[in-house]
């Protein structure tokens, strides 16, 4: 367990805390200046309210910003698996064979490995703090170029206080055959998690990163504001999966944006299962002609959880395609909001975009809001959207029960069947097994 530094507890979220953090990390001037500019943006951007269009169904009044401790002492780096928390070791085991692992605990990286063969090929996979020291120019070239400092209040906060994080760089034509694993572990009560992921891939490369966010249930408010910036080079392929399994009282704010170059392919998955409040902005910017983005989402809410996914398929160039499929199941008094936008800019002729959001309500108190949007500025393209919110189908239940299944088993089958159309698009058996296990655990 790490101790919370007195200095950071007393100053809370302040420019002084940003200065202290940057100094403690001995960062270059450019990064210190970036953090301060971000904190300035954080202070200037007003807290969203129910009157702001993007937040009109998202109640932030229960969030206590003043309770956030931005940084706590980081446990020492370890070199052997046995020194890691049991929960982390279990995750590494479950992942099977990987090309490398980066583990963050609270505010810093404590363990990282990368296969020798990948190192030889010039792949960089480490925490962002280390990358700033060892590959500063590369980081500086890309950091905040995809998610600008003032994207929203929480992205600004992350840019000011990010710590630990992940940096992944894949050179031209390198195919990282085995998936890479990132673990982000919220171990200490009250200390915020500000992970930042930066992925830069050169032309014709291929890589998969599975990013798991986890932590035990704690009393008291937990807070995470994280940002992921993904750059996919010409004809490169990136698969980035994030699985949110925070403890029960965590407020999570994520911004994830992928920029695709010519003929690039991006596959993303957002899995949301933990926390008290989860807001995620997930965007694909199809900047290069011929690029393709597949965006999958799976969520399951129970008790009083709240999930808000705000997605964007931004078609900027001709001959691009995107396919978004987000599915959510809700029970007890859980709530979700989905707001998806397909934006086809004037140059985006021959766009082929699909957006589908399906929600399954398993109780009377559950509620899902689904709002699809289209903004079309080109005139030769195809854009489709579909949104459904429905309870379990009575006829389906009757069919299964008439064949001898109990109500619980019948419900389980229907829920599993519901998510199957997303799961069958995930080519990583380990991830699919994990999703099935989490889903099964939430069905009562």
């Amino acid at each position: 367990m790490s101790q919370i530094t007195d200095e950071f507890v007393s100053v809370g979220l302040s420019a002084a805390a940003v200065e202290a953090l940057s100094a403690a990390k001995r960062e270059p001037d450019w990064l210190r200046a970036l953090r301060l500019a971000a904190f300035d943006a954080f202070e200037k951007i007003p807290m969203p309210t129910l009157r702001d269009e993007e937040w009109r169904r998202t109640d932030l009044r229960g969030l206590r910003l003043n309770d956030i401790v931005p940084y706590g002492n980081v446990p020492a780096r370890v070199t052997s698996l046995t020194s890691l928390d049991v929960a982390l070791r279990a995750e590494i085991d479950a992942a099977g064979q990987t090309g490398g692992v980066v583990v963050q605990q609270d505010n810093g990286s404590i363990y990282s490995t990368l296969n020798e063969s990948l190192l030889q090929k010039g792949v960089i996979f480490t925490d962002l703090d280390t990358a700033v020291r060892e590959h500063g120019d590369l980081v500086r070239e890309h950091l905040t170029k995809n998610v600008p400092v003032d994207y929203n209040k929480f992205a600004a906060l992350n840019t000011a206080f990010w710590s630990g994080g992940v940096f992944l760089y894949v050179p031209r034509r390198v195919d990282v055959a085995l998936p890479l694993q990132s673990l982000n572990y919220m171990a200490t009560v009250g200390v915020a998690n500000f992970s930042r992921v930066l992925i830069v891939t050169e032309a014709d490369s291929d890589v998969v990163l599975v990013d798991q966010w986890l932590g035990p249930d704690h009393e008291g408010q937990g807070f995470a504001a994280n940002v992921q910036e993904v750059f996919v080079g010409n004809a490169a392929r990136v698969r980035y999966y994030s699985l949110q399994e925070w403890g029960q009282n965590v407020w999570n704010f994520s911004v994830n944006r992928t920029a695709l170059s010519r003929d690039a392919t991006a596959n993303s998955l957002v899995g949301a299962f933990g926390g008290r409040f989860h807001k995620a902005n997930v965007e694909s910017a199809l900047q290069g002609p011929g690029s393709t983005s597949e965006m999958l989402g799976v969520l399951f809410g129970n008790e009083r959880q709240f999930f808000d996914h705000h997605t964007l398929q931004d078609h900027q160039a001709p001959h691009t395609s995107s396919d978004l499929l987000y599915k959510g199941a809700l029970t007890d008094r859980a709530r979700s909001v989905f707001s998806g936008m397909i934006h086809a800019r004037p140059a985006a002729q021959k766009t082929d975009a699909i957006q589908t959001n399906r929600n399954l309500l398993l109780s009377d108190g559950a509620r899902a809001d689904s709002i699809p949007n289209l903004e079309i500025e080109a005139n030769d393209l195809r854009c489709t959207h579909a949104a459904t919110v429905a309870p379990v189908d009575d006829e389906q239940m009757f069919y299964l029960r008439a064949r001898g299944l109990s109500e619980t088993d019948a419900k389980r089958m229907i829920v599993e069947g519901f998510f199957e159309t997303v799961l069958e698009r995930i080519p990583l058996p380990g991830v699919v097994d994990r999703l099935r296990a989490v889903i099964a655990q939430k069905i009562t």
Partner: protein
Amino acid sequence: MASWVKVGKTDEVPEGTGKYFDIGGEPIAVFHSDGNFYATSDICTHEEASLSEGELEGEVVECPLHGARFNVRTGEVKSLPAVVKLKTYPVRVVDGSLEVEV
């Protein structure tokens, strides 16, 4: 297990108005109508809007978003677009302080 929670002083909720309180994660609105205090869930049962920001006329509050109306004493729906009854909570005044049973 319900318990009484002190939320503030009675003069924080002037006559004819409502105020939002967060009680253990539950959004609750306390209204002051005709000398009495009433507490209900703060979220309209139609859409995600804050009833404490709505207009209170006598015992009836109107949601600021789409105009649904509720009786704050009983939780009954008085007009569309709401159809589901609003949850109410017992309120008492103890030594000038408001207490809500949640």
